[in-house]
């Protein structure tokens, strides 16, 4: 009896994440054991728990494996050119201040090709949530050396090991002025979800770095086993250290990964500063942007 009941349930049942995804595009193209799907699930759960208005939420991604996310999420989405997710998000946020804008992209896209946009958006403190999925390599194009590839790790353009110093993303974000900086691995599902939920309720330039396994390229080129082996490695080597000095959280090849929330502070955002400045300068002549809808609002 219970078997029959369960079979009926299995046929009828739809995954709880279904309202947040464009189900006609599922199954997605990510490789087996890739962690990006887990991060998407965590983001969808955070949206659900934070009870944000989905009509007022937009998601922007660039190019790359993680760039596919904008196409899979059932939100207002835009898939920009390589590295230009943050400029598009900046324009969207300034034009439609009522939107909750998330930039969801990879390490090569955000700090490699779009590195300049990243530091300037952080400097100006644009009101964006940046989810940076770090797999240490340019995975979609064939495993080229990325600005986050750790020293001595191999990539397809550095077959004898990488000799360039990598970026320390939390430190970069903090030094440029981000208001919320956290790093987790995609094994810390509850904590990643909590970080997303927390960041969705804040203002300013918020950066959450999520480390994910790349079994097809990073792991294969470095002989690290499958994605499951990398997950076990994160389990053994990830240390949670909230409020750690971001200068000490650099990632070396197969070394300790310091996770946690490093920065959480309040600062006036770009729009608030602009508003305040013009109000001081122009007085009553200044006509501010209506906070509920921007100029396009009918």
């Amino acid at each position, binding site marked *: 009896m219970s078997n029959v009941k369960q079979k009926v349930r299995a046929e009828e049942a739809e995954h709880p994440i279904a309202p947040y995804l464009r189900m006609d595009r599922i199954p*997605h193209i990510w490789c087996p054991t890739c962690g990006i799907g887990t991060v998407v699930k965590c983001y969808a759960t955070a949206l659900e728990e934070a009870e944000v208005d989905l009509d007022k939420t937009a998601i922007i991604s660039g190019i790359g494996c993680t760039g596919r996310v904008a196409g899979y999420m059932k939100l207002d989405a835009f898939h920009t050119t390589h590295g230009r997710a943050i400029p598009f998000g900046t324009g969207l946020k300034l034009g439609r201040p009522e939107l909750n804008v998330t930039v969801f992209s990879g390490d090569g896209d955000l700090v490699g090709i779009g590195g300049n946009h990243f530091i300037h958006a952080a400097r100006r403190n644009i009101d964006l949530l940046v989810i940076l999925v770090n797999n240490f390599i340019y995975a979609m194009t064939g495993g080229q050396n990325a600005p986050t590839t750790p020293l001595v790790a191999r990539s397809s353009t550095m077959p004898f090991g990488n000799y360039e110093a990598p970026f320390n993303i939390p430190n970069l974000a903090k030094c440029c002025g981000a208001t919320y900086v956290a790093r987790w691995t995609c094994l810390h599902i509850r904590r990643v979800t909590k970080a997303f939920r927390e960041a969705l309720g804040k203002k300013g330039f918020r950066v959450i770095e999520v480390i994910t396994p790349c079994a097809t390229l990073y792991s294969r080129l470095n002989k690290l086993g*499958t*994605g499951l082996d990398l997950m076990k490695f994160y389990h053994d080597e990830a240390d949670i250290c909230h409020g750690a000095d971001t200068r000490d959280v650099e990632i070396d090849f197969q070394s300790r990964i310091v996770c946690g929330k490093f920065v959480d502070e309040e600062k006036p955002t770009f729009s608030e500063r602009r508003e305040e400045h013009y109000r001081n300068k122009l007085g009553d002549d200044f006509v501010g942007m209506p906070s509920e809808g921007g100029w396009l609002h009918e």
Partner: protein
Amino acid sequence: MKFWRKPLDYDKVSVPHGTVTIIKDRCKGCGFCVEYCPKDVLVMSEGFNKKGYHPPEVVKEGECVNCNLCEMICPDFAIFSVAIPEDEAPENEEEASEEGELDDED
């Protein structure tokens, strides 16, 4: 479940139960759910799905505690668990309480 010492609120705490549903054709056989299930409810099956991967299967029916970990960690959105309401609770609740009583003797 075996306790070294019986918890003080043992009678009040009710263990939740869940049913795991696997959408087999969406699975890519990464094995995350099998590895991280706290109750070892799942194993990799011998059979293949449409794409040629081995999807997981449920072996310990009724032991799922509806922690949703498999649902959260699955990168392919292929598995989820749904809570069973209290009145439909499975039979093994009696077993659990019996074990608890056994522990109580010493």
